């Protein structure tokens, strides 16, 4: 049949084909040319599930765990699966909550995640709750205990070292380091948890799941081909001796201060205490929110790591260093003596010395053993004024360089975040302060560790390592090995030996000998430990504080630095006890006991009374609370003033703006109007 004979059948065919063509054309655009539907499809159907591997465990030097993961249970609920006839009273009884609380919790869950998704109703059930629920679980369909790991500190010590984890904050997310994190992820907030975050966290696994229209995850997307498997966090092996750490915390209880003990041979930190210490378990999981504020507001600031963030004037504990510089620079010889009769008067004022008897500073050894202020003020001046340096300004700069190389005045680089730097003045500092007019008398106090010099206890202990090692140190650090591999690239910076300017071994021998005398015949006889050559130096640091609006001289800080034994030293230690009294009274015996504990593992019976005396001592100054409340008041006032100032400057800005706008209108709009008129 031809077209002419019956065109209509072809018209019908034409309609069929053209409609099909239109549909195909539309499909071509929809499926091939437009990409937005693919994106939308992935958005709605692919659920990216992040699987968090267990965080790494932290072990002490003997392999004892200090921080590991414990299993706790959350009670999860799928609201849609709760049967209508659920015995709510029974469930409440099992969970130990009242019905109103239950309904509030359930309402919150439904509001947040809807009826179809499983979400946590109660977090971190207690053991009793878990046990009771598991026994009766068959009665409560729709509810399910869900396992979760929680960081646990079995020794309840070293909180300041180990740190804690918490949900990553919006401020942190802006930093490069945390760029890969999502809101709600847990991250190390402080301590080793923070500095070794990348090691401990392992690698997060990402699983792509398909989800349905109720947002419930279903099958793996593309059979899991795009998934990244999770890799468990690596463990850390520390230098820290958990027993020593606990013992140090015990000794420091009821005192404000810190202890840092370092193995000089490696730079490994054996113990770091900032007292008052806190139970780190308070800051885990859901307890953190409750306890953090309380700890943060505490007047004694337990969250503040005094061992590396607080800086103190070192007092007499700096004298070995002053001597070291003087001897090395050639300002004095070990036999140099100074006639001190109770005060240093060369600078037109009297700087008091504890000793009056003639000859207590007849040579370097005696002067250090008796901690003669006059002697060390004098040799500091002699160093600064040395002819070969060419003037006091260059001399002080030279002294600064020595001290800088000892690790003072800058963070040592310990593997904890937020390390303090202390204070180490140089010539420019004094030029600024005294407008260029100053001499060695002006700055004489730094020779005896007062004045503008300030060190963190960590820097003090590190200084001891230098003397113990006769001229070098390793950056103090906690981590000995990662997953038992001591040569992990992460630890590379701590393998580098820092050579302190080429000071002769003989000079170090003189200093060490003199420091041994400090214990054996000098100021720190209380620290004497039978059979161990302890080299040490006490320090008693004058300090002032503003109490009730008045500058008040507070009780002296008690300081002590030491290393032992003299030959082949195994431990270097710095102890600071704030507002406690003489260095020899408190800090020295604490250090001595810690040395004994570390070297011998037990405390000799003969030293038990000393130990008891220390344990019983309560040395927190009443004024601490006053200062704290005053500080709080000041902070609040400063905050309010800042806000007021901002408000004021805002209104000023607005006023300026409106004036400018009016002027602009005057210039540009009004004349035109006039012109049209």
């Amino acid at each position, binding site marked *: *049949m031809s077209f002419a004979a019956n065109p*209509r*059948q072809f*018209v*019908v*065919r034409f*309609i*069929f*084909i053209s*409609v*099909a063509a*239109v*549909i*195909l054309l*539309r*499909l*071509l655009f*929809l*499926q*091939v040319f*437009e990409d*937005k*539907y*693919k994106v*939308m*499809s*992935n958005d*709605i*159907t*692919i659920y990216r599930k992040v699987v968090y591997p267990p965080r790494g465990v932290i072990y002490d030097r003997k392999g004892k765990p200090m921080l590991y993961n414990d299993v706790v249970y959350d009670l999860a609920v799928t609201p849609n699966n709760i049967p209508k006839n659920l015995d709510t009273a029974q469930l409440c009884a099992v969970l130990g909550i009242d019905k109103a609380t239950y309904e509030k919790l359930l309402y919150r869950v439904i509001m947040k995640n809807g009826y179809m998704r499983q979400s946590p109703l109660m977090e971190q059930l207690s053991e009793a709750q878990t046990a009771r629920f598991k026994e009766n679980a068959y009665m409560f369909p729709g509810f399910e205990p869900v396992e979760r790991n929680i960081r646990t500190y079995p020794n309840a010590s070293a909180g300041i070292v180990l740190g804690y984890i918490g949900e990553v904050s919006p401020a942190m997310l802006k930093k490069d380091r945390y760029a890969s994190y999502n809101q709600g992820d847990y991250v190390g907030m402080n301590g080793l948890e923070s500095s070794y975050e990348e090691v401990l966290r392992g690698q997060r696994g990402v699983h792509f799941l*398909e*989800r*349905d*229209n109720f947002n419930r995850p*279903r*099958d*793996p*997307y*593309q*059979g899991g081909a795009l998934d990244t498997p999770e890799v468990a966090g690596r463990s850390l092996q520390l230098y820290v001796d958990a027993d020593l750490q606990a013992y140090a915390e015990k000794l420091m209880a009821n005192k404000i201060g810190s202890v840092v003990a370092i193995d000089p041979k490696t730079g490994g930190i054996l113990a770091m205490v900032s007292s008052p210490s806190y139970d780190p378990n308070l800051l885990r999981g859901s307890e953190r929110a409750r306890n953090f504020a309380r700890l943060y507001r505490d007047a004694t600031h337990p969250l503040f790591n005094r061992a590396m963030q607080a800086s103190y004037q070192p007092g007499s504990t700096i004298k070995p260093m002053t001597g070291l510089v003087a001897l090395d620079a050639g300002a004095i010889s070990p036999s140099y003596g100074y006639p001190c009769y109770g005060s240093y008067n060369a600078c037109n004022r009297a700087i008091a010395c504890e000793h009056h008897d003639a000859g207590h500073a007849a040579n370097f050894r005696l002067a250090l053993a008796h901690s003669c202020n006059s002697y060390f003020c004098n040799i500091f001046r002699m160093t600064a004024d040395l002819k070969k340096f060419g003037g006091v300004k260059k001399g002080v700069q030279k002294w600064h360089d020595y001290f800088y190389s000892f690790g003072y005045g800058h963070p040592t680089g310990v593997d904890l975040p937020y390390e303090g730097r202390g204070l180490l003045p140089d010539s420019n500092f004094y030029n600024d302060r005294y407008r260029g007019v100053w001499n060695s008398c002006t700055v004489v106090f730094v020779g005896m560790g007062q004045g503008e010099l300030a060190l963190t206890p960590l820097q003090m202990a590190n200084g001891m390592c230098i003397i113990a090692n006769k001229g070098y140190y390793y950056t103090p650090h906690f981590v000995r090995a990662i997953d038992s591999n001591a040569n992990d690239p992460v630890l590379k910076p701590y393998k580098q030996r820092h050579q302190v300017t080429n000071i002769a071994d003989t000079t170090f021998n003189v200093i060490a000998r003199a420091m041994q005398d400090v214990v054996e015949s000098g100021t720190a006889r209380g620290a004497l430990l039978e059979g161990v050559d302890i080299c040490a130096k006490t320090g008693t640091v004058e300090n002032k504080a503003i109490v009730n609006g008045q500058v008040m001289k507070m009780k002296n800080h008690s300081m002590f630095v030491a290393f032992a034994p003299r030959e082949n030293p195994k431990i270097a230690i710095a102890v600071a006890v704030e507002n406690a009294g003489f260095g020899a009274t408190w800090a020295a015996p604490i250090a001595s006991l810690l040395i004994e504990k570390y070297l011998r593992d037990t405390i000799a019976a003969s030293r038990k009374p000393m130990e008891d005396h220390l344990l019983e001592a309560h040395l927190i100054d009443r004024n601490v609370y006053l200062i704290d409340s005053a500080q709080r008041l000041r902070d609040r006032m400063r905050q309010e003033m800042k806000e007021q100032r901002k408000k004021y400057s805002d209104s000023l800005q607005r006023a300026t703006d409106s004036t400018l706008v009016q002027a602009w209108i005057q210039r540009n709009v009004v004349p035109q109007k006039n012109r049209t008129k």
Partner: protein
Amino acid sequence: MSLERKSLFSRLDGVTLMLYFALVVIGILTVFSVEHHSGEPIIMFGKEYMKQLLWLGISMFFGLIIIMTESKFFSSVANLSYTFGLFLLAITIFIGTDVKGSHSWLGVGGFRFQPGEVCKIFTSLAISRFLSSPETNFKTLKHRLIGAAIALLPALLIILQKETGLALVYFCFFLVMYREGLPNAILVIGFSAIALFLATLLINRWVLFAILGVLAVLAVLLTRRTLRRSMSARIALIVGFAVCVLFSQVVVPFSFKHVLQKHQIDRIYSMIGQDVPDAYRKNATAGEEKEKKGNVSDYNVKQSKIAIGSGGFWGKGFLNGTSTKNEFVPEQHTDFIFCAIGEQFGFLGSMTLIGIYLALMLRLLYLAERQRSAFSRIYGYCVASILFFHFAINISMTIGLAPVIGITLPFLSYGGSSLLSFSMLIFIMIRLDSDRQVLIR
């Protein structure tokens, strides 16, 4: 002739059968792919693809019966069956069960079917019988009106069952009547009517009135010679103008306010991307109004477009349809089954499927044209037209070219009455074709 001597089965048209089976198999696999989740056994009783397989068996059984039946039977039973169909439709209005807002299902025991689907067969037979009868002169207005009435009577009953989508299918018989001699003007008027309808929805009533006026004036200016000469042309113009105005100013507002269901109004407006005007909103309280802002059919079409669009050129692969497998597209195993094809097999698969449909429809037209008897030819056109209407509207609605009216994709959509009625339509045609040398009255 040689055909006479061949056995019945060898006289069946292989191409049509092949295309038919291809579509049915694709349909079952697609329903399977939508329902199946990894880890489940392949044979699971109670799943819809298993039920569909059962329906395929039933359809085969009916197909076999049809093949065994004398081809004369169909023409002789045409009017009776049509009456029976109307009867079924009429009682459905009274004793039908409600399924998803429509009242078009008959429940017999635990078993449910839509008389509207089956009635397509009866109506096709009746129209074929009427148009092919020697007494009928399709050039006369009377017989044209009777033909239209045969097609539209079931549609009317179905509208009363609140299943407008299915009712619209009955308009496809005009395509058949066009083939049998309905004037060309009908097509032109039909398309104009659609254009007018869309304009009514899109353009403000008074503006449209002005546009129609301008068009009328233009028509007068252009054809003024003809108008001067012929009275009928003048009448035609005036009547045409009046009808247009009446339609846009009275019929559409009236039907939107009083005839169409709320969901249909929503769908029509969602297709043209407009909010339903306040005048046509139905018994919705103020609070409900705000909630319903993004209306349901909007969601369907959006999800459906996402599913199809995300398939890309090659598709995501069998059983990898993330949207369809996870139930994002509502009605995805019935009305929106094409989404599963589009998502899993991409443009290539969609093109193939459309190709198969087109091949089947053109084959049916070819079969129709080679019939000796008018009854068979007209019946062939009926089958092809019904298929075409379902195919075009269904796929268009999944890709946003047509409003979402609930009609199935032939052979693919899950649903017993749909599969059965389409199978029967096809088998009857195959049976008629096998006797194409015989004149059937």
